[in-house]
């Protein structure tokens, strides 16, 4: 599993936000867009084009799966994280934490020098 998650990293900001939004549960496209806006405090927003471009990649990679829809032509298609998707998100968060630690350390060193 470790090997599987590592090959998907690093994630683009849009991909990270979409995966993060799906931790809220099973969501349709518009709900994902709203969740991304909410989670980022309105600082990051994606449109339908960006969303489905990323969902297509995530579906192909097996990080996200589509729920079985009734097929009545009216029900919105919903998506959810797979186990692999959860793992990749956790690995990316861990990776970003490392980057943040390093950035803070570098900034502290820089402040001491100046």
């Amino acid at each position, binding site marked *: 599993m470790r090997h599987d998650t590592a090959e998907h990293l690093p994630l683009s900001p849009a991909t990270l936000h979409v995966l993060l939004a799906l931790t*809220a*549960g099973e969501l349709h*496209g518009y*709900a994902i867009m709203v969740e991304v806006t909410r989670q980022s*405090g*309105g600082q990051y927003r994606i449109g*339908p*084009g*960006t969303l489905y471009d990323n969902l*297509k990649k995530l579906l192909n990679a097996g990080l996200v799966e589509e729920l079985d829809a009734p097929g009545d032509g009216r029900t919105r298609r919903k998506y959810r994280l797979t186990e692999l998707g959860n793992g990749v998100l956790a690995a990316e968060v861990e990776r970003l934490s490392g980057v943040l630690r390093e950035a803070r350390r570098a900034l502290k060193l820089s402040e001491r020098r100046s």
Partner: protein
Amino acid sequence: MRKPELFLYRLIVRLHPAAFREEFGREMLLDFEESLTHEGAARIFFDALLSVVRQWARCAVSGGADRTCEAQASLLAGQYAPLRDQPLNVLELSRGLMASLMLVGLCGYWLSHGASRIRSFDIVYAASQGGRIPEGGAAGQTSGGSSVSGPAERRFTQFDVISIRENKNGNVHLSFPMSPDDYYVPTHGYMQIAGLPLLSYIQFAYRMNALQVVALRKQLPDWANSVRYDVEARVEGDPNKDDMRTMMRALLASRFGLQLHPVTQTDSVYDLVLSKPGKLGPTLHAHPADDPNCKQGTAPVAKGFFSPCGTIGFSMQDPNTRSVKMAGRSISLSQFTWYASTESGRTVLDKTGLAGKYDFTLEFAPQKVGGGPDPNASEPPPGAIFPDAVQEQMGLKLVPGKGPITTYNLDHVDKPTEN
């Protein structure tokens, strides 16, 4: 829905590779319709055009290995002529590029000159639908999250289907904002709320302020504050936020047996008045009648946090000054009194005599709900307390007085009936 915009967006969706369009096109259109209620069309159009470029570029690079580039009907190859099962040639890419550039130019012209200047869109669209040409060129608008429609507007009284379950996983989810303001994300009659106690559902349904919630909480059984419920409900149609409140009240009555009645009595209040007659404070401004950012809901009133039109937003508490920023955009002062009651600890009545909508920012050190200093705080907050901040920044004053206060008395409530 503004029909010319939908028409244009549909065109852009059709420019995508056929397989992508078939898989996601319908969802993109639905998302576009919903996004348009609080986003600007320009940003969504641009996003869709970028998507067209990305998808076709991916097809060109993959040389047909991508499944979504397989030969299917596509506008780029003529709507009904199949593409060859081969990489795109220069001619096809050129046609795609030209079509995209024409659309970008058309969108740019339309956005820069205003939709009202291009009445032909409405006329052409209405004619193609066999319908009447809309007067004034406007097909429909939304304001404050509520649909503005014709006289035949439907009244929603109750949900068609309801499911209530006790929440076991602790996850909280809202399919639309349950705030007391008008900000709303249309869900086409679907409501999914998870992980909230009964009191939160009541607060939404009856649009209670914090003081009314505190008063009701004392009357409710313990489980109404502690047990969390997942509520899923659906109704045919497209209810607005007030409709959702009406249907939530019916849901609470039918499934929880909830019975409340309002009680109004005269008690201590604050009257919200102008500090100096005819003069607003430095952070309070009349909302511009024609605000292009309002429908987009993107430009913040105060730097650093998000506040779409019709809402009041809060920043996180500053750890040093312990102050929070509050910003309202296109709200009435009577809407402001809802929050002012919470922050000042008394019911606030709007006596400013100011009509219309306003933008404001306010920075203050919050006290505990119900007013007065926070007993858990080791020292008083360094920032301005709410009444002082309102006076200094907004030019308004909270004057103690007597006035009508409405609270709710609980008559009956039960745990929910089985689904």
